[in-house]
């Protein structure tokens, strides 16, 4: 094993680390917005809101992410670009769009599950006090739902970080791409992949610490917290 190749190709790995991180954070944030909207639509009783949300969620959860990435990069976005008279989009943009749309579908289900897990009596108690539906959602339902959504959201973010590696098929310069390129050029079979693996591991580890910290922080606020006698 020749570790010097990493020094030689470190720029490639640094860029890979940067793209992987940016892509994941971007997709998580966009996915949260898409997911909250879709999740609320999915819970609506109105068919015009409920049905499109359900269709979207089912399609994105029911097909492989790899296919979605290829489809968006080679079919959807070039077509859209053509309409506006632009050149075909960068791979990184396609990757970002595909990951965000996909994450949105999974996050929508997490939101829906979180909201539905709050007992019906909570909404009824809030409404019986004269609060509007929106007030009840904001002060009573969502804070409780959010706490329960943190663990599955954490899992989703970590999965997204790892799944972002799939964008290497459309030649986004992410960590996988860095490893593959280095391996091809140097004929070194172990080192580049081990390096990428270690970097992914560090990223997922850091992310899981952040999620853990958030969970802890929110669980100290009420609900089943018996040490805090006052």
């Amino acid at each position, binding site marked *: 094993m020749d570790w010097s190749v990493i020094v030689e190709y470190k720029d490639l790995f640094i860029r890979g680390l940067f793209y992987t991180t940016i892509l994941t954070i971007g997709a998580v944030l966009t996915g949260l917005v898409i997911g909250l909207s879709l999740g609320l639509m999915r819970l609506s009783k109105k068919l015009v809101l409920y049905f499109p949300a359900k269709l979207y969620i089912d399609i994105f959860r029911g097909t492989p992410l790899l296919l979605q990435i290829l489809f968006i990069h080679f079919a959807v976005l070039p077509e859209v670009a053509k309409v506006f008279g632009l050149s075909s989009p960068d791979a990184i943009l396609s990757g970002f769009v595909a990951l965000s749309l996909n994450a949105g579908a999974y996050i929508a289900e997490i939101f829906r599950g979180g909201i539905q897990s709050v007992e019906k009596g909570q909404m009824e108690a809030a409404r019986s006090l004269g609060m509007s539906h929106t007030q009840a959602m904001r*002060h009573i339902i969502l804070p409780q739902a959010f*706490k329960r959504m943190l663990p599955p959201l954490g899992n989703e973010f970590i999965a997204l970080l790892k799944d972002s590696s799939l964008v290497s098929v459309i030649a986004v310069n992410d960590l996988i791409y860095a490893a593959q390129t280095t391996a091809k050029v140097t004929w070194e079979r172990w080192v580049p992949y081990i390096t990428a693996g270690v970097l992914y591991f560090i990223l997922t580890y850091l992310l899981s610490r952040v999620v853990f910290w958030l969970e802890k922080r929110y669980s100290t606020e009420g609900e089943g917290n018996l040490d805090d006698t006052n």
Partner: protein
Amino acid sequence: MIQIEGLHKRFGKLEVLKGIDLQIRKKEVVSIIGPSGSGKSTLLRCMNLLEEVSAGKVMVDGQDLTSTHTDMNKVRTEMGMVFQQFNLFPHKRVIDNIALAPMEVRKWKRDKAEEKAYALLEKVGLREKANSWPSQLSGGQMQRVAIARALAMDPKVMLFDEPTSALDPEMIGEVLAVMKALAKEGMTMVVVTHEMGFAREVCDRVLFMDEGIIEEEGSPEQLFSHPKKERTRSFLGKVL
């Protein structure tokens, strides 16, 4: 105060209320008794439209709740509700459980709302629990907080749905005592209950429901000691 005419309620094909006519006068304390599944909770929940009604009229203080022009949020502020399962907000301390609605709905300042909340806690004998979390309270204490929370909006009517059914026997008394005090102050109350002692002692009128209708009604004395209907007799025979 509350006037119900020809009230029907269906869940899909199941007709749960089959034509209810009922008047609750100001300051009256009325209890609703009857077998499980007879529609007692549903009737109570129709009074503040937690359940949509299928047909008929529900009027509160002269306002028709079934009319689409009625501001239900406003009407509900006048009607406190206490649930079997308490339904306290677990993520809020006791004091905030009570102060939240006055602040959000009535737009009171925090100081004013908390002052009111403390006074109500005093009234239900739980002032020292103001900063506890609901999970730190016993069932009886939770239900008393729930009553204080409902009272914080200064309701004109209080609706109770089996407020003591989820409690251990030794805690029932403390909740009933709070309700009795409330009745004495002249609060209009509708109480679905299995506590026949309470119904007999505190209520002005008792309604016996069976299979979606009010089968019989009368003063506690009349209904408990001289029931007219066979069904009432057989129900009372089982529970007394």
